[in-house]
């Protein structure tokens, strides 16, 4: 198996509030022989606040990240955080389709014209894992024997013209990865419903209302966990569980795991290395069962 080298943009969340996503991404990549080349001196993508109140910077910040990747000789960049992924693909799309936006960004970045041609391709973590999915089954040492709800959220799939990822209203790529390591996934109605995203701090009630609907459906359909690939989806369903449970008749106690943590558990990586201990809602199902044969 030859190592796959790919540009890596962790973004701010993966070094802070979603350290567990960053930790599990790194150890899983290592186990699957993926060489994550972190973009040197990367900056914040601007996230929601930039596109909400500063359009110019909402394009310039992510494009600056991609320019650094290009200068480092990276043809592709993988960003696990859905919000960063969205800003990177949207920024790239805007300079590639609008000459006026491109000219503006060239000024903000003080770069010569032409510098923004041929920016790297942007991938999310599901796309990367799907690409090398044949490497996963032979390395599974512990079947992920749970029934779970794969929750994609907004920004991996929308807008489809820009992301070009999976089926917009009923994506399946994460479900396929869970099945690959022995898990079962439920059919449910909230795969791509919004969790309230950046309103976690400024309008917590919105996050409580939307999260309650999402968890209620997952629990009703017998999911034992919700699987995500976005720091905001994770914190809104995990850290904000108190706010959500205020609105549910029966409090939801199912944990929220990152897809990289699920793959990591199946690969036999210790839960501490995957950051499971950092969750607010504890993972109660067994994660240290006796090693089994690889999944056929």
């Amino acid at each position, binding site marked *: 198996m030859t190592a796959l080298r790919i540009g890596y943009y962790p973004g*701010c*969340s993966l*070094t*802070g*509030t*979603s*350290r567990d996503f960053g930790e599990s991404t790194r150890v899983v990549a290592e186990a699957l022989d993926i060489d994550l080349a972190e973009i040197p*001196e*990367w*900056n*914040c993508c*601007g*996230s*929601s*606040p*930039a*596109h*909400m*109140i*500063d*359009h*110019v*910077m*909402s394009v*310039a*910040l992510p494009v*600056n990240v991609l320019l650094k990747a290009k200068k480092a000789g990276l043809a592709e960049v993988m960003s696990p955080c859905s919000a960063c992924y969205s800003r990177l693909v949207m920024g790239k799309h805007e300079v590639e389709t*609008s000459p*006026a936006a491109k000219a*503006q960004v060239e*000024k*903000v*970045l*003080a770069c010569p014209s032409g510098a923004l041609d041929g920016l790297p391709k942007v991938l999310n973590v599901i796309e990367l894992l799907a690409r090398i999915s044949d490497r996963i089954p032979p390395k599974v040492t512990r079947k992920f024997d749970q029934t779970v709800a794969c929750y994609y959220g*907004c*920004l991996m799939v*929308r*807008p*489809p013209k820009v992301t070009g990822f999976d089926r*917009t209203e009923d994506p399946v790529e994460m479900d396929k990865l869970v099945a690959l390591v022995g898990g079962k996934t439920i059919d449910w109605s909230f795969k*791509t*419903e*919004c969790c*309230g*995203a*950046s*309103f976690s*701090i*400024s*309008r*917590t009630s*919105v996050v409580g209302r*939307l999260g309650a609907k999402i968890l209620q459906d997952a629990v009703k359909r017998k999911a034992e966990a919700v699987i995500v690939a976005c720091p905001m989806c994770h914190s809104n369903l995990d*850290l904000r569980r108190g706010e959500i449970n205020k609105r549910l008749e029966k409090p939801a106690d199912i944990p929220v795991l990152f897809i990289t943590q699920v793959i990591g558990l199946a690969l036999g990586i210790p839960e501490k290395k995957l950051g499971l*201990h*950092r*969750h*607010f809602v504890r993972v109660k199902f067994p994660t240290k069962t006796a090693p089994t044969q690889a999944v056929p």
Partner: protein
Amino acid sequence: MSSHHESSSARDSLAARLEKEGGVSVADCYQCGKCTAGCPAAVDMDVAPSQVLRLLQSETPKHEERALSSLSIWLCIGCETCVTRCPQEVDLPRAMDFLRQEALARKLANQEADDVVAFHQAFLKSVEKGGRLFEFGMIGDYKLRTGHFFKDLGLAPTMFLKGKMSPFPHGGGNKREVAKMFARARAVKKEPQK
């Protein structure tokens, strides 16, 4: 038009500017309401998303001010559901971004949205200062801006214990470069739009 940009006789409607600056044509909307039906925030809004477009379609100052001073533009989460489902592909999230910035520039932002505005401003200030987001500093700034000193304090100890929050900036990145980008962007925004 640019030479008369400032004069009142040559007023560009918001719809015209949105088309020129953001490539969004509000005339394409035929008011089917699909955006509103699928919007996760519509239930809390004072003006439904489809109605925001309708206000812009009239191109009258009165209706434009109603859109700019609405709470709705600050409750849009940016989930992109509306534009994904719009039969006319009207980029409503882009229109919302445009309206928020215009509302701030004209000091028409709805006061009920002060907390939302404060969060966005504190976030960007943190990025401008540090190149990357420094969560602890950003939340401190947000509390100063809003006076919500006690909100979420109960979560803080667990966040520190679980390593999800640090009182120290992450380091790394290129602070000076990002600060210069913000400064140059301010100059770019002052140039007349072509």
